[in-house]
């Protein structure tokens, strides 16, 4: 009897200890070890941030040169006071780790193909694709270039700062997500910072439509293709219009004969960045402002996430003081201002990723033809650790173009190698670009900094207290012959290589133009008279409303700029709706829809949060687009095809309402534009009737359903419904999952007058009151005053806490 009791108790105790210590994985989710996760000493309770957590702290024995003082203001924005550049980088690394460690870890895992190590088989395909695209090679090449720079010491200091924080972490202090996923943080390295730049490159410069374009060209023939897919929108207002430009246009290089490899490519498109990725920036000269001082504005539109992509801080040394936002994992503020100048960034969107068809010389695919010679491939062996199963090994083949990403056993003559700028060792070492911007004092120093920039190419806007404004298309841009890289190229001849790079002096730039402002919104960098060919994914509408608005404005105040950032007007709607109404035959319309139509006629094309007109427009226009381009839907063999841009569709609605494009393929009738417009109107109204039945108070923001997801897609840590106006091609570019990720307005008077806000909070801890505290003000269009000061006493008055970091000796 006694023995039985003892055995029962021992077995029970042991099995519970084991059960509560292991993580249980189901197909949908993985449950963390319940014992350690629920223990108030080791588990999630430890991340319950309490008022007594904000205690002043002192860190001694740090690997810094001199002491660092960090004063946090009431929004948890750190103001760092250091005596040298390395210590600034160290402090930034420490702060990024302290508040955003999981975000940094998951971003590096995503860019290095190491997600499966913590998430298991469900991310294996994603990791394989990342590895096949050569992200590892790209990061190593980037690091190699950085190591030659004198400023590499800053990356090393940043790394030390991150690791100083990680080293002193006890398991119970691990960020919540580490506990949920049951793994430990690993030390930071400079290579991981290089991977962060690869992550940025994936978001900003990996977009291309080469396969879809080649297939569409093969299907439609050159004439129809050119009619539907012109590269220039004649109504576009370029970033650097030739009449406002200050740079000397050099002669173009020699072009070579095109040898496009036309044919169908059955490959599915790989992961491409979301369409909503884009941004606005502009600067107005003192001649256009009420105060007479320049104003600079920037709002990058990126995936909205919690924690936010941005971290806000001020860094001060005796040499400079700079305020702005950085991306955790990368040193220096990427967007911001200092005591003399301000700068901001939008994406250039030129195509720097091209595909080359490989002609193998043997069935084993170990060599390929290149200029009539047989060239062996080289291999890069990728080993992916997978949680809960064996390692997966992939030998990726590399050609002179780059990795062979698309490969099929039964389709070997269509294997494709990728040539991507982001994989190359930078010809210019661009490590210092953003560091130099942080401490630039004038236009000359800005220009020197941005000329050294490599990639992903950015439209870097600038304004200074001395009154200069400028905007430069910055980065290395490939020199291409006409239409090169628009379609898949023959990879067996060296003449299909890029012809080098556009000379730095010929990068488009605009400085102090007569019109009194510079502006960019991911539109075409230049007017068509620019002597070099380039293609890309350019925005057609935001740039135009921006240039139109700024041209009309005068006596500009900071508040006007804030309103412009939140402008919901869509030129797409302004141009499409009259053509839609013109082509609508009202005799066939249900009476109950007439009232709705009347409202739509009076609508001012503004996608405001609480009105219904934008829903009807969006439904109606989307249906017209889908019905029209039905012939370009991917076929049953899912061959990807390209559909015309919106501006082209609208132009055809005006210019060719009887063309064959309006015909619906499935029907015998030969439809013209008015048939499509009416059918789309019926479908849209039927759908809207249904939506209104479900929710009588339906309005634009509810229909658009924007949300802010947690970076690991944990619903409890996400925000479900954003209440604001905005549309994908309005300046306030709100989409379902992306939008203005940081709004900044800086007036460069004697006293800097700066405002900014991002939809998140400084702390990445879901248990912190600073996790999402700025979201509701951001939704309402409010801004925080950004206080840049060297006056420590002023900061201490409202300080939440102070951290002192002291070196060993």
């Amino acid at each position, binding site marked *: 009897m*006694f023995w039985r*009791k*003892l055995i029962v*108790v*021992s077995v*029970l*105790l042991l099995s*519970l*200890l084991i059960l*509560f*210590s292991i993580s249980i994985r189901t197909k949908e989710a993985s449950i963390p*070890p*319940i*014992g*350690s996760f*629920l*223990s*108030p*000493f*080791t*588990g*999630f*309770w*430890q*991340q*319950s*941030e*309490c*008022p*007594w957590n904000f205690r002043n702290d002192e860190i001694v024995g740090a690997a810094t040169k001199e002491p660092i003082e960090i004063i946090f203001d009431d929004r948890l924005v750190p103001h760092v006071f250091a005596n040298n550049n390395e210590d600034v980088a160290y402090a930034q690394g420490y702060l990024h780790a302290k508040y955003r460690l999981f975000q940094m870890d998951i971003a590096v895992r995503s860019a290095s193909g190491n997600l499966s190590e913590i998430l298991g088989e469900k991310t294996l395909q994603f990791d394989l694709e990342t590895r096949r695209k050569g992200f590892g090679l790209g990061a190593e090449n980037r690091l190699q270039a950085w190591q030659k720079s004198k400023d590499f010491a800053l990356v090393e200091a940043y790394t030390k700062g991150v690791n100083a924080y990680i080293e002193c972490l006890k398991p*119970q202090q691990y960020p*919540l997500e580490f506990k*949920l996923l049951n793994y430990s943080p690993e030390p930071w390295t400079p290579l991981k910072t290089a991977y962060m730049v690869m992550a940025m490159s994936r978001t900003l410069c990996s977009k291309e439509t080469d396969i879809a374009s080649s297939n569409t060209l093969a299907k439609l023939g050159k004439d129809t293709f050119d009619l539907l897919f012109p590269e220039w929108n004649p109504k576009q207002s370029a970033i650097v219009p030739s009449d406002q430009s200050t740079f000397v246009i050099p002669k173009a290089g020699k072009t070579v004969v095109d040898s496009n490899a036309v044919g169908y490519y059955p490959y599915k498109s790989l992961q491409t960045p979301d369409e909503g990725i884009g941004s606005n920036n502009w600067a107005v000269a003192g001649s256009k402002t009420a105060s007479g001082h320049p104003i600079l504005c920037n709002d990058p539109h990126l995936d909205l996430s919690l924690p936010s992509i941005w971290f806000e801080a001020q860094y001060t040394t005796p040499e400079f003081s700079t305020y702005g936002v950085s991306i955790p994992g990368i040193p220096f503020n990427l967007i911001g201002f200092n005591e003399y100048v301000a700068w901001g960034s939008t994406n250039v969107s030129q195509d720097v990723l091209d595909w080359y068809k490989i002609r193998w010389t043997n069935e084993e695919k170990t060599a390929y033809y290149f200029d009539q010679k047989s060239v062996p491939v080289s291999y890069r062996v990728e080993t992916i650790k997978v949680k809960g199963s064996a390692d997966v090994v992939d030998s990726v083949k590399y050609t002179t173009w780059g990795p062979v990403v698309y490969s099929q056993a039964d389709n070997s003559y269509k294997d494709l190698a990728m040539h991507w700028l982001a994989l190359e060792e930078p010809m210019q070492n661009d490590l210092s670009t953003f560091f130099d911007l942080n401490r630039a004092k004038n236009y000359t120093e800005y220009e020197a900094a941005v000329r050294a920039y490599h990639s992903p190419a950015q439209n870097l806007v600038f304004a200074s207290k001395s009154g200069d404004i400028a905007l430069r298309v910055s980065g290395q841009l490939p020199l291409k012959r006409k239409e090169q890289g628009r379609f898949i190229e023959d990879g067996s001849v060296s003449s299909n290589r890029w012809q080098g790079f556009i000379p730095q002096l010929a990068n488009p730039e605009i400085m102090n133009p007569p019109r009194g402002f510079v502006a960019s919104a991911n539109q075409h960098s230049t007017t068509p008279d620019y002597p070099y060919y380039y293609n890309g994914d350019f925005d057609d509408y935001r740039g135009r409303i921006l240039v139109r608005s700024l041209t009309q404005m005068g006596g500009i105040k900071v508040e006007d700029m804030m309103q412009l950032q939140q402008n919901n007007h869509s030129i797409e709607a302004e141009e499409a709706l009259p053509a839609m109404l013109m082509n609508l035959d009202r005799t066939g319309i249900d009476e109950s829809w007439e009232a709705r139509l009347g409202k739509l006629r009076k609508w001012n094309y503004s996608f405001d949060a609480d009105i219904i007109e934008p829903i009807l427009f969006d439904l109606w226009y989307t249906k017209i687009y889908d019905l029209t381009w039905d012939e370009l839907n991917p076929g049953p063999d899912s061959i990807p095809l390209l559909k015309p841009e919106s501006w082209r569709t609208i132009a055809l609605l005006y210019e060719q309402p009887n063309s064959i494009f309006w015909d619906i393929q499935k029907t015998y009738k030969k439809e013209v534009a008015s048939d499509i417009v009416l059918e789309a109107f019926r479908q849209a109204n039927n759908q809207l009737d249904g939506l209104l039945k479900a929710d009588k108070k339906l309005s634009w923001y509810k229909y658009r359903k924007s949300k802010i997801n947690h970076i690991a897609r*944990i*619903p*409890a*840590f996400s925000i479900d419904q954003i209440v604001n106006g905005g549309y994908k091609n309005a300046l306030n570019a709100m989409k379902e999952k992306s939008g203005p990720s940081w709004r900044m307005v800086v007036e460069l008077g004697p006293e800097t007058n700066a405002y900014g806000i991002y939809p998140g909070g400084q702390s990445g801890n*879901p*248990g*912190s*009151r600073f996790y999402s505290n700025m979201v509701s003000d951001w939704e309402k269009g409010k801004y925080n005053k950004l206080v840049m000061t060297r006056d420590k006493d002023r900061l201490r008055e409202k300080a939440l806490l102070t951290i002192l970091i002291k070196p060993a000796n």
Partner: protein
Amino acid sequence: MKKRASLNPFWISVILIALLAGLVSPFGPWWIFSLLCIVGGFIAWPKGIKRFWLGFLAIFILWFLVALVLDIGNKSNLSSKIGQLFGGLPSIALLLVSALIGGIVGGLSTMFGSYIKDLMKQKS
């Protein structure tokens, strides 16, 4: 009703184990208190159902109170989010579940400790 004497040795053991477990828990793995409870059960040597209650009460109370203090300081900001992960548990339920997990392991541990003592006494 008459109150129990506050110097009842059982309750003193409960409080002692809770206090000691609270002191060592921040410095070890989550189950560190189990070792302490085994030793506690061995020394206190309770009989019958108290073999279990000794550790259960000590750890249940300890975990509940510590989590409660953190949750109040945090205004249930985090526990309400974690509750959603666990199928919509309210904060107070999450507190009780946490304390129960600790309590059960604590109870089994003191049971085990006391039986070991039985075993040794039998042999000697």
